[in-house]
Structure formats: C-alpha cells, structure tokens
C-alpha cells in the first residue's frame, strides 16, 4: 500500500530519453537564436562595395589648376546620422575635363589631410604624412598615395563613385 505513494520512478531508458530530448531541444533553440544573432552582428560585412554615383556639383565650381574641398552626403545615410552623414573630398581640376578626386583620409591611418595651395602639398595632422598635388606620396609614414575616387562628367556636373570609408583594403 505504502509503495503506491512513493514518487513514480522512471525506467532508465525513459530518463535517458528525456535527458537527450532536453539537450536536443536546447541545442536546436540555441542554433535557431544564434544564426540570426550572428547574421545580425556580422551583417555589415556582407554588404560590401555598395558604392553609388554621387553628384559633387557643377564643373564651374572647380577652377582649373586648383584643388578645392567638396562635400557630399553619404548615399547610405540614415536620418539620425546627423553631421556624420557628410563626407568631404578634395577635387583637383588638372585641366579641362581632367580631374583627380581624392579621399580626405590619409592612406596611413585615415586622418583628414589638408591642402596647402602655397606649397602644393597635402599634409596630415596625425603622424605627418605628406602628399604631392597629384596625390602621390611625398614623405612620412603613408604606404601609398591618397585614395582616389572614380569620376565622370555628366551634363556639366562632376560625379564620383563613393559610399565607403577608404582603407588599404577597400576602395573609397
């Protein structure tokens, strides 16, 4: 009679099955949560080279033989980007329709280079990289010249292809 009130004892095979079922359910759950989480965190890595053509302005804004700062809005910006949606670049009009458009970022570690028209040099404030007016490396630590945009002239407007921070491994 008393034996009836003792807790039910499961058979070893049933216990083993429950343990395995519990384990399996949790592994499945963790995987199903993990896949979207990893995809979410590493998602930005899958969208590479999302560069588009951007209008920089009328050719008349860029006098021949001069290098001018131009500003555009990043094509992939979101409304809460604020000022960081803006990107600056240096536009050098060599002559006629021949241009060079340089990224603002030093090829060394990405600091903003400044143009000095008097000495016709770009200088970087961080570690002292210097570039000539054609963007080639003059001195300092940069391993290469300035990053250049692809450009096109459409109906008297200068267009560049951009939308990503230029680095040694990715174009502008």
């Amino acid at each position, binding site marked *: 009679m008393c034996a009836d009130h003792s807790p039910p004892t499961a058979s070893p095979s049933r216990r083993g099955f429950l343990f395995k079922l519990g384990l399996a359910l949790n592994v499945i759950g963790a995987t199903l949560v993990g896949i979207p989480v990893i995809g979410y965190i590493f998602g930005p890595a899958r969208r590479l080279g999302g560069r588009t053509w951007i209008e920089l302005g009328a050719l008349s804004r860029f006098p021949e033989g001069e290098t001018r700062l131009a500003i555009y809005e990043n094509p992939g*910006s979101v409304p*809460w980007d604020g000022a960081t949606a*803006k*990107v600056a670049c240096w536009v050098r009009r060599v002559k006629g329709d021949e241009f060079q458009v340089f990224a603002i970022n030093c090829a060394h570690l*990405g600091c903003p*280079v400044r143009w000095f028209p008097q000495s016709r040099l770009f200088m970087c404030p961080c570690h002292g990289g210097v570039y000539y007016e054609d963007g080639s490396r003059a001195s300092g630590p*940069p391993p290469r010249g300035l990053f250049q945009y692809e450009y096109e002239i459409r109906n008297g407007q200068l267009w560049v292809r951009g939308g990503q921070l230029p*680095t040694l*491994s990715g174009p502008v």
Partner: protein
Amino acid sequence: MRAGVALRSLFQSVDRWLEERAGLGAAIGPVLAHRVPRSTASWWYVFGSATLALFVLQIATGICLALVYVPSADGAYQSLVYLNYHAPFGWYLRALHFWGSNGMVAVMTLHMIQVFLFGAHKYPREMTWVVGVVLFICTLGMAFTGQILRWDQDAYWGLGIGASIAARSPVIGEQAVHILLGGPIIAARTLSRFFAVHVFAIPGLLIAMTGLHLWLVLRLGINEWPMPGRLVDRETYHRRYEEEIEKDGVSFFPHAARKDMVGMGVVILIVLVCAALFGPHGPRGFPDPTLIDTAPKPDFYFLALYSLFALLPPWTETVLMLLGPPLAIGLLFLVPFIAGTGEKSWKRRPVAVLGVILIVLVVTTLAGLGVIVPWSPHMEAWSAVPTPVAYVKGRSPLELQGALVVQNKQCRTCHALGGEGGERGPALDGVATRLTRDQLIRQVLQGGGNMPAYGKNLSPAEVNALVAFLDTLRPKGQVPARPAVNLEQDRGDRGAGSGGSGAGRLDPPRR
C-alpha cells in the same frame, strides 16, 4: 535606556528574520573572517580592491550619464554639451566618469605590476592571473569605446584610425572595417554599436570576470609575501601556505581589510578631487567630418600606441599592428605558464624586474612623445609664427625674399626656426653649418630623408632667394659647411702645417 534596549532587540529580530530567509551572514561571515598571512595585511596589497572601488564608481556614474546621454549620431554631442552646462551636476558626473576611468586604468596597472613582482601569478594562482589579464583587456576596451561615445572630432577620427588598422588584416580587411563600423562609413550605426558594447557587452563580461577573479582569490588564498629563497613547489606549496596561516595568520576582516578600505577611500577621493579641479574632458569639437582643420588625438591610455604608429618604419607597420597586440596579449596570458614555479621574490628575479622597468620606460616614453608630438606638422606655423628678428635684421632684399619663401611655402610646418615651428624635420637655425649652398639647393628641389621634393612647387627665383636666406642661418662665429673638395684642400693645408683654426680663411667666397 529602555528605548535603547527595545531598539536593539528590534534590530536583532529583524536580523534573525532576514538571516533565516536569506542566510547572507552565514555566507559572508566566513569570507570576512577567513585567515590570511599577516604579511599580506600590507599597503602593497591594496591596489586590487582600489581598482574594484573605481569600477563600482564607473558603474554608478555611468548609469547616471546614461540617464541623459543620447546614443545617436545626431544627438550625442548636444547631449554631452547639455550635461556639461545644463544638467545639474552633469559636468561633475562626466568629470567623475572620465577621471574614474583614468584612475581605473592607472590603479589596475599598478595592481598588475605589484602581483607580477610578488610572484602572485605562480602556482597555484595561474588562472587568477589569466582572468586578471582578461579584466585588463576589457578595461582598455572600455577606455577605447568610452572615448568613442564622446562623439567629437577625436572620436570620429579615432574610429578612422581603428578602421584603418583593421583594414590592414589580410583577406578580411574590408569585412573587418564594416563589422567595426556597423556599415561602410563612420556614422549613426557606428555610435550605436559602440554604445551597446560599452554599456552592455563589456561591463557584463567585466562583472562576471571580476566575480571569478575574487572567487579564485578566496579559494586559493591571498598570495603570501614572497621570501627570497622560498621556492614555489607544486608538491609542498599548499602545506606550507596552510602552515604559515596557522602560525602567523590574521582574519581578513578587519586586519587586512582596513588597509584595503583606506586605499579604496583614497583613490575615490583623488578621483573626486581631480574631477572637481579639472572638470570633464571634452567634447572637443563638433563631429562634422567636413571640418577638417582638426588634429585628432587619443586619450592618454592610447598615446603610446599613437606615438608608435608615427615612429615605426613604414614597412614594419602592418605586421606590427596586426601581430603586435595578439603577441603582447598572448605573452601576458602565458606569463604564469612560462614561469609558474620557483622563486617568487622580486629580489631574485632580475629578468622580471628588468622586464617591468623596460615596459614601463617604453610606454611612458612613447606616451610622453605622444604629448609633444614632434612628428606632427604644425599646421598654423607658416602664417601664425613670426620669423625671428635676428634672422631678418640687416639682410639683403634677396635674403628677406627667401625668409618669406620659408613662411609662405609652409617650410615651418616641419622645420622650427628660433624654437618655433614643426619638429618633423631638423630645425633650420644653423642649417648653413650643416649644408653647403649646393646641398641646400639639392635638398629643396629633390627632397629626400623624409622631406617632400619642392622642385615643381618653387620657381628658380624662389629657390635662389630661399637658399640665399638659408645660407645666412648659422650662429655667429661658426664655420659654414664647405663642399667636400674644399675639405680635401683643408687636409692638404693641414698636412702643410698651417692647421689651427683658420676658419675665416677657409670661408668660401659668398655672393
């Protein structure tokens, strides 16, 4: 009298009620009472608890800042300005959080040096050291991400530096940049990412690892004061530690804890005073990437790295940027496995002591250089710094023209004159004692030795004027540089016995 007795019995019954249910006294009591070697109740042992106190301060002030701070690229800067100038005590909480973080990095470094010199990483406390290294890395991670949340120009361009380093990794460089920035450029998603890491991910890890670190300290006992000649041996260590505690042990509370408490109070007070005296740090300039007249600089914990990147030879840079940090961290993790037994006392570990001295000297020297940035061009020197009067007084029109070229062509961005200007290149005072006229022309036109070539950027007339001016730059009474042919002649003269200091006679005819 009677009221006092009643109050006391009330306290006792509340305490009994709580203890019966929570059992906290039974859990914490033995922790407080556990015996430690008397030698460890020392001022040298207070840095760990002081770091913990600062961490608690960081959590408290961090939560307060999050009540107002807006982790959005278009609002973060304004919310920081609001904290500085409008929110009651906002400036003070920002200052506390900033000085607290400085303090935490500093005191944690002292703790690390102390435990290393006292051999605390040796058997059986290897894992305590390893967890400590994780805590150290997490704290530096907090320092870097916190600097980003300041969302000013330093933060923006600091991210550019981080991305440029990540981009140097082979194959996955571009992907690494996008993962770091949360997108193709530094913008809103970047800030949100760093906010989540700074406020949730790393603090969670820090709290968990701090718990594990403390558990290990309690489980293995605090490291005894190292005695020269008393070697750590896996067979006998535990027995000897027990013996020491039995013979000359004290209960942790209050014998050792009182010094810890003083240490905690002192570091917190130092942070409070620094915050009150020096105030919050930044934000240093609106994070508009089109405002390019900026010279970004990291907070002090990363100044040494910042200097290193300027001073490394370019060809070593990518390799060292990518392999340096993992190697350094790997080495830190391996310390207890490289030297896990044997001598504990710093008095008999010359390599360990010299290693610490070397690292401290290298890091402080680099950080010091990071403050004065001798390699950075002085962008405003050409238009803002005057030419020393002595260098223009009584000069010919051509030489004066040359002095103008020095200013207008930004020579002083890298070259100092009269102690003012850049230090990237050599100072030009006395340049005529080092370079002849021909060498000056060659150097200006062709550059070299880390100087750009000015051949295409200067007219012959400008070069002529510039060199005429540079030729006047030598201290009174010093010999100008002479061409090598004259040197040969000079030797011949000496051979003939004329010798002496006939400097004036050897002066090449000028103009």
